[in-house]
């Protein structure tokens, strides 16, 4: 499945590149790392429009889980600001 391989390769390269860039810029917040990771993963997933229906369903579930993690981090930040 060439399309799966290219998708995984692009996501892996993007995540690795992001880590390198954020480390180089001295970023020390785990929230920033995670937020950028999931934004990238969601964008790449949306760009791969030619996945079959089963793969799309599976990736939608992964996206929902990752987005849930993002909402959790966002809500923690909101609580921290309000407190």
């Amino acid at each position, binding site marked *: *499945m*060439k*399309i*799966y391989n290219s*998708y*995984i390769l692009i*996501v*892996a390269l993007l*995540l*690795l590149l*992001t*880590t390198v860039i*954020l*480390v180089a810029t001295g*970023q*020390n*917040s*785990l929230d920033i*790392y*995670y937020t950028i*990771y*999931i934004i990238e*993963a969601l964008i790449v997933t949306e760009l791969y*429009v*030619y*996945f*079959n*229906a*089963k*793969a799309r369903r*599976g*990736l939608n*579930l*992964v996206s929902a*889980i*990752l987005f849930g993690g993002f909402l959790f981090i966002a809500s923690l930040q909101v609580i921290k600001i309000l407190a």
Partner: protein
Amino acid sequence: MLNKNPYTWAGLGLLVAGSLVSLSSYFILLLTWLTALGISMLILSFILLALGRTIPKLPPEVSALLLETGIDNIASLVEELRISSKAIYLPSSLTSGRPQALIPLHSNPSLPTKIKALPQRLIVRYGASPDDTGLLLSTTGTTAVGMLESRPGPTSEELESALTSLFMGILGVASGTRVVTTENHIKVEIYNPRIENKTTWFHQCLGGPLASIVASVAAEAWDRPVTIKQEEHLRGRCSIELEVLG
């Protein structure tokens, strides 16, 4: 139940490694960047596990075995009957529910301009003349059209999207397609096809597997009969020209 394939194994490996890396670096080593790297491994593992579930359990070799057996039987039938006419790919509205190929039995047939809905039989009569008899066969395109999520529309863009989705996303046999439609001609280019082209009698009659799929999808999209006018395999590209009848 997990479908054991390289994607699943890689996903499980990354899940374990990512958990170990992120937990140990967060709680013991207190390194943010290493924790982030562990999290990225976990994200990749979720993706791999999700994709691993979609890989068919049947090995490709078994699928090839079944496909070749079926094709060999149809090829024997076509060659034995010495049929030399080109197949007419019919949309599902003209057959009983799914797109099929009609091969006129008589040689040098004048292509029928109007084909009525045909019954689900091997030998069918498609016109008023006694010569208007043909074989109604299921092809690779018949099954491939069923894999599409919805019936494609008749425009070039819709047809191109359906073919790219089929060849690239579902079957994984090409890297893209391009469709140009002019009046009643459809020209399709398939980039980097990974199916070999054979020049047997059967393939001259029905077209190659890719052409058969393209013709079936086009017939379904236009809701009209379609024939393969030309099929050309160049380096890294397959050009198919279709004519829409009726």
